[in-house]
């Protein structure tokens, strides 16, 4: 009856749509003509300072100035400032941006692409002037010309020193624990339901004689979630090869597909069944989000896989995929680091790996020293972060600001 009801709903919608009357929004009358008053010109901005923007790749100049005496005081008629730039002090000056009243600074960022009309060449002289504007376009005040200034890029972003320190510390921890794992140390990892379910799901698919659908998500090959997903795919493919179960891997990104093909091929070889590997197990669909979803949904309903595994980066398609999989009666295991999509997987899947559990899953499944060592290092790094946050919080609330500022990272 459910199907008939849905079809009836569709029919009602189809019949009702042409009968629907279009809403015609009444044009709201304008509130009347603004009163035009002749106002005296405001004072110009002063003390314009120019400098190349710090810690960038070039093509940018930072301006700062002292606001007009009539901005928020005096005549109080300033509504903003226009930034104008030229290649010589005589001009011609071109408007680059507008900023609201009260602004003291602006970063003029040009394009680094030579083909772009907004291209801003490095190592040439630029001149700036700032026009103070009022509600009356005829009433404004221009500053004196400031310059010359040249833009250029920096090799080292000093604003990101804390990132360098954190990466170095994490690298040291990882190397230390990898060495310990290689030395035979027993590194404990607590069990996770979602990871244990992977092996069960493969077994179920084998018993049912149905394939496993593995979705790598919409991420590029560069996304960390996708990289973690390759490791899990490798493990799944190895089991699938051992049990001689079917595997379907539809891909969104061509590079991801290429890496996935190599991963699956290597797993089949590891399992001692290189001949069972078929190129069309891993295939490219399209790079359009919802077209990809439509195709995967169709596969779910036509091939009826016993298990659907979603591991990687997912966006708005997460619920559509998981909901269709649930309707098809498949066991579903999902894992993503996209926080906004985790709720959808939680409601529609049997098991969900939340955020970092996805990264940990590869270590659980592989049990290789390299991955176990990095997992252990992650835990110590987390402990460090908790400690720093607590110490920073306490110090800050006792009036010591310096500790927090040490961790500030600029863009």
């Amino acid at each position: 009856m459910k199907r008939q009801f849905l079809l009836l709903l569709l029919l009602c919608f189809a019949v009702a749509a042409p009968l629907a009357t279009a809403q015609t929004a009444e044009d709201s009358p304008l509130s009347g003509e603004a009163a035009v008053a002749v106002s005296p010109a405001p004072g110009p901005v002063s003390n314009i300072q120019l400098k190349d923007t710090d810690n960038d790749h070039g093509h940018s100049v930072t301006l700062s100035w002292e606001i007009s005496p009539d901005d928020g005081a005096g005549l109080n008629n300033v509504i903003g400032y226009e930034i104008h730039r030229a290649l010589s002090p005589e001009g011609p000056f071109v408007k680059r941006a507008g900023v609201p009243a009260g602004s003291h600074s602006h970063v003029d960022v040009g394009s680094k692409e030579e083909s772009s009309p907004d291209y801003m060449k490095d190592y040439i002289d630029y001149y700036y002037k700032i026009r103070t504007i009022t509600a009356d376009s005829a009433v404004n005040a221009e500053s004196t010309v400031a310059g010359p200034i040249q833009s250029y890029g920096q090799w080292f972003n000093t604003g990101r020193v804390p990132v360098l320190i954190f990466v170095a510390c994490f690298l040291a921890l990882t190397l230390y624990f990898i060495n310990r794992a290689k030395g035979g140390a027993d590194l404990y990892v607590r069990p996770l339901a979602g990871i244990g379910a992977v092996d069960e799901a493969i077994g179920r698919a084998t018993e049912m004689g149905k394939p496993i659908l593995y979705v790598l998500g919409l991420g590029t090959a560069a996304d960390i979630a996708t990289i973690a997903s390759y490791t899990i795919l490798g493990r799944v493919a190895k089991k699938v090869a051992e049990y001689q179960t079917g595997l379907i891997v539809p891909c969104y990104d061509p590079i991801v597909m290429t890496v996935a093909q190599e991963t699956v091929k290597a797993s089949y070889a590891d399992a001692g069944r290189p001949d069972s590997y078929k190129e069309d197990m891993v295939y490219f669909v399209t790079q359009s989000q919802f077209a990809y979803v439509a195709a995967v949904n169709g596969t779910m309903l036509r091939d009826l896989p016993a298990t659907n595994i979603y591991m990687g980066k997912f966006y708005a398609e997460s619920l559509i995929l998981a909901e269709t999989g649930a309707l098809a009666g498949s066991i579903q295991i999902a894992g993503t680091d996209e926080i906004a999509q985790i709720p959808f997987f939680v409601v529609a899947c049997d098991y969900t790996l939340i955020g970092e559990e996805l990264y940990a899953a590869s270590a659980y499944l592989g049990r290789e020293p390299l991955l176990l060592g990095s997992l252990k290092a992650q835990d110590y790094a987390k402990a460090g972060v908790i400690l720093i946050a607590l110490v920073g919080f306490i110090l800050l609330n006792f009036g010591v600001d310096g500790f927090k500022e040490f961790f500030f990272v600029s863009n």
Partner: protein
Amino acid sequence: MDAFSIGTYLWTTFGAFLTLCIFSFLYRDNPFYKFAEHLVVGVSAGYFVIILWHNGLQPNLFNRLNDGDFYLLWLNSARPWYLIPGILGVMMWTRFSRKKSWISRYPIAMYMGIAAGIAVPLEMKNRVNVQLYSAMKNVEWNNFFGTGILDSGSAVAQLIILIGTLSALFYFFFSKEHSGLFKGVARFGIWILMIGFGASFGYTVMGRISLFVQRIQYVGNWTETSWAHPSVLVIWFLIVGVFALLLLLEFIKFLTKRRTAAS
């Protein structure tokens, strides 16, 4: 309403028809859905080839080699180093040959290496440094409740953010068994996460409903334009007729099945 040509009417009608085809998936997999699915996959694949050419290859490779002119003068280019990514791209095509497909592993390895190099500091900055900095808050103790408990400026809200962040981190300890006090903190952490997920779920569902309303408005706007063209309406009612026939057939099938079961 602007005057549309008959072509526009037909295209919008086709759009409305495809909308219904996709919605028919709610009923079950059917030829209408299959048609729409294959059409959108095919069109999007073709579309992205053109996009890749115009937004990727042409501006980032060919134009840079030729300074805007599309001639085979690349070796005389002022920037011949752009040939390197071009060659790496061509190496990917060796995947079409079984014997030479190993060559494609080099550009893949290069891509993965560069990607990891970019991703590691970026993830460390965005997911660790920035969040750590934000977690260290100077609590306004004299503004304990603010204008309400959900006032983000209040001390209570700031303490919830700090405690929630830290306890959620406890949940993600993998190398320690969750027992005793540790278990309590981790459980509190997962509760905080679930509350966050619930809020996120509700927010996104509202977004999806607005998308649905947008589709209905599309069909509604289509009706507004189509009244002027009875020929388009004829097509529309043909579509509705097919759907009605489908419903009738399904209903007959349902009745037959029930009778068979009863006998």
